[in-house]
């Protein structure tokens, strides 16, 4: 078999557009077009350009001194950089010359109507809607200006002529109603709520004289004494709590604790050896509560019971009648008893009253959190300089006010709640797993 030197061109059908495209060589055309596009993009090839087009004589000074102000102004004149995206980035002209665009409302309007409107406006004829808008604007602005601004006080709210509406003792209800008829004021007399003072405590507690910036010796000592007493009380309480809780238990090592725990937990469990013997001995079922038996009484027993009951009743009646007689003789002791109970009740009543008065001075229980009083502010001896310039400030006024409001039951004691951050479970998607590092690429 002889090899053919040149492959014979195979005939192919060019019937359809597809097959035509497939089998015709258009490389040269495409190359040409590509060149043309390049030329369009970058300009004509350098060989075709003249020297004048390629080079230019530099006449201007190399460095231009432009002030920052000018530069800024120049930059301001330039179109904003955000519009750069909208500019075409090639020199290729848009193949679609006439792009469709939604025309604005103004553009869509008929020329005749436009002309008419312009004429009207020139004459000073406005549309109803426009007039309304202008009017609204004016009203709104006026209202805004008339509204009293924050911190502007221009009236006496305790005006005398407003007293007619108050339910004072001077006018009868009918008089008030009659006089208020045309005034536009509310004619209904609102029952005013009985305002109960939240606490008997004063708004501002008078300071202890030892809190002066330059206190006398006695006052200062007195203050220190009260502070120390308070502190001692707290310490005592703490010690008591420790004694009652922490110190009551003996300490053991962790190992011992574990062994003890095991022992405790296995209490009552039968050991394997004893278990077997027990199971064998009582294998049969036995109820916990034995069944009841319905035992009947005989007629004789019933009669005797009846008789006993009668006798008992009689005895009781006799005893009562006897007691009535004897009670007459016991009047004195009874009186004494009554007196005793009454006096006891009186003492209790007094004590309760006293406690009530004391309790009034204490803050009420308004929320689950208990009110805690702040400590007294004080300067230690060496801190007292005795002059205003080098005075050492103590205590925080804001905290004191806040606590005072709580103490006077105006606000309930509370703690700042921190919203708990939700626990986020972090995991990698299976697709993103980098398992291949450990498995495939090993």
């Amino acid at each position, binding site marked *: 078999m002889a090899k053919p030197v040149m492959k014979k061109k195979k005939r192919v059908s060019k019937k359809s557009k597809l097959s035509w495209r497939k089998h015709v060589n258009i490389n040269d055309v495409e190359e040409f077009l590509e060149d043309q596009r390049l030329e369009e993009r970058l300009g004509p090839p350098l060989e075709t350009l003249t020297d004048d087009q390629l080079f230019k004589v530099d006449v201007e000074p190399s460095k231009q001194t432009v002030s920052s102000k000018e530069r800024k102004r120049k930059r301001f004149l330039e179109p904003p950089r955000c519009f750069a995206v909208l500019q075409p980035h090639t020199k290729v002209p848009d193949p679609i010359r006439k792009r469709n665009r939604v025309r604005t409302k103004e553009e869509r309007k008929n020329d005749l109507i436009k002309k008419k409107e312009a004429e009207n406006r020139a004459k000073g004829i406005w549309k109803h809607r426009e007039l309304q808008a202008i009017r609204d604007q004016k009203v709104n602005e006026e209202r805004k200006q008339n509204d009293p601004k*924050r911190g502007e006080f221009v009236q006496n709210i305790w005006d005398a002529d407003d007293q007619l509406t108050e339910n004072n003792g001077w006018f009868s209800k009918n008089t008030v109603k009659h006089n208020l008829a045309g005034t536009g004021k509310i004619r209904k007399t609102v029952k005013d709520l009985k305002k109960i003072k939240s606490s008997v405590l004063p708004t501002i507690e008078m300071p202890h004289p030892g809190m002066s*910036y330059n206190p006398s010796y006695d006052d200062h000592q007195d203050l220190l004494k009260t502070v120390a007493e308070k502190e001692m009380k707290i310490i005592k309480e703490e010690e008591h709590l420790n004694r009652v809780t922490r110190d009551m238990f003996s300490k053991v090592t962790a190992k011992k604790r574990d062994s003890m725990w095991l022992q405790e937990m296995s209490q009552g469990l039968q050991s394997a050896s004893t278990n077997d013997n027990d199971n064998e001995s009582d294998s049969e079922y036995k109820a916990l509560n034995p069944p009841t038996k319905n035992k009947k009484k005989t007629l004789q027993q019933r009669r005797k019971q009846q008789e006993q009951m009668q006798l008992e009743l009689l005895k009781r009646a006799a005893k009562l009648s006897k007691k009535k007689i004897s009670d007459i003789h016991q009047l004195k002791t009874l009186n004494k008893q009554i007196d005793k109970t009454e006096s006891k009740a009186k003492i209790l009543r007094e004590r309760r009253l006293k406690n009530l008065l004391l309790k009034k001075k204490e803050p009420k229980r308004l929320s689950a959190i208990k009110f805690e009083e702040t400590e007294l502010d004080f300067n230690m001896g060496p801190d007292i300089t005795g002059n205003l310039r080098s005075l050492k400030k103590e205590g925080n006024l804001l905290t004191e006010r806040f606590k005072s409001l709580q103490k006077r039951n105006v606000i309930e004691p509370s703690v700042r709640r921190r919203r708990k951050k939700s626990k986020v479970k972090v995991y990698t998607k299976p697709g993103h797993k980098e398992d291949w590092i450990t498995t495939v690429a090993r």
Partner: protein
Amino acid sequence: MVAKRKKKYASGEGAHFMTRKAALKKLQLSLNDFRRLCILKGIYPREPRNRKRAQKGQAGIKTLYHVKDIQFLMHEPIIWRLRDYKIFNKKVGRARAVKDFESLKKYLNNHPTLKLDHIVKERYPTFLDALRDLDDCLTLCFLFSTFPSIAHVPRDQSALCRRLTIEFLHAVIEAKALRKVFVSIKGYYYQAEIKGETITWIVPHHFSFEPQSRAEVDFKLMSTFVEFYTVMLGFINFRLYHSLNLFYPPKFSVVSQNDDEKSIVDEEVFVSERVAALNFPVSKTSSGEEEEEVEIDTFSTEDTPEKIEEAKIEAEKIKNLKGLFKGLKFFINREVPREPLVFIIRCFGGEVSWDKLLFVGASFDENDESVTHQIVDRPSMDKQFISRYYIQPQWVFDSVNARQLLPVNKYFMGEVLPPHLSPFIDKSRDQQYIPPEEKALYDPEALEELHKKQETDDESEEEEQEDEKLEAEDSEKVDEDEEDTEDEEEEEEGESTKKKKLKVTPGEVYKEVPWEKSKQERQEYKLREKLVKNKHRKLYKSMMAGRQQRAKEIWLLRKKRRLHEEKQKEERKKKKKVEKQTT
């Protein structure tokens, strides 16, 4: 027919109370809005008599409100404003998120505002009611006026507080209403009397702001209180200014702006600076006397004549106090806190100025020859004028509390000051220990006594020292003296035996035995004690026991003081001795 079954907690205490959560649900408000509303309207949580019933059998301790209170809140038009706020916040949040700045601006320009005027009027139907509740308001406003802008507090709140409080101070100055001052380590306590109401407030020291931990104080809550109180204080200021015949946003006729000053600041700032200076009298709407002299009725029915007399004396004292510093000219050195001192001095009719560079509004110079007092707080000064006293600021405070100009010698520059005592202690306490310095403050006799005692102490110290010197010399002479005295005694005995022998004796003048009277009195007293009814006997006994105990305490403290003083005296003596020896 069977009667309808009564449900539990449909009546009685269970029906009267409502938990906070139920209240929120009923009012359709968030917790923050509810708290704000409660503060503005003055509704407080209540404590029930029987908690279990009030909580409808629920366990634990819940915050409870009266059902009537909540119903009262339900009618408040402000609730709608609060709901508007909610909507506004949502709109603004959305606009910001989608960067719709045009509508964002529109929303922010038309933000809803809370108008609290009617609530002030509702909570305080009369002006006096408002004055009665002014303590809290003033203290909080003064406190917030020192704050910088903080989170959760409206930006202009502190400036507003500052303006209102300064205006209030002007009103107090014009009314001459200040009565007492106390400088504590916490701040300045002031007490004024306006329309017969005693108003106390605290002003913090003028130090820099110290940041506060949020765990301790709820700032948002406090700023809500301040929000209400600023409105209240504004209306009170308005009323006070008008009752004193003053223009309400304060005006000054004395000062006017120069041309160069106009170029520096605009008029509004200029005026507000003068207001803050506290140094110029506010101009009046009419020149007429607004305050007539109040005379006390002599035909009072209830009071005894002594009480009327007392009240008269008190009124006279207050009248004197109002013009305490009249005619005095003070100059305040730069190390002294300006504002409190200017306020106090101007309240009692004094003239004040300060260094021109320290603050605007200085009216005269340090070189002014007519200055009578210069307030300094430093140990010494280079240049001093002979024509004036150099005193420490405490003199002003103590003089006000004593209601008279105290002698200046104890308050001179560099002197160790006498203690600054609290004027807020009840002066009529007879069953309490009063230190001698304080006693001296209230009655001049005791003051003299104290001075005398100190002088005699000094003298006696000197004498004692001399005595000690002499003792050493005299020790030899003592023996001789003793013999002499024995001889004299023998002679006297001889004379007395002679007198007994005379028969005629002159009639004795009846002498009143001094203790007889007191003895009789005591007996009578005991008889009277017996007349105390059985009903009151126990009370009487406990009262007397209490009195005795307090007396004992006083005695104990006096003794302590005496011992302390003696100890100090000895120490001083020792020091002196040591000094002498060294010299």
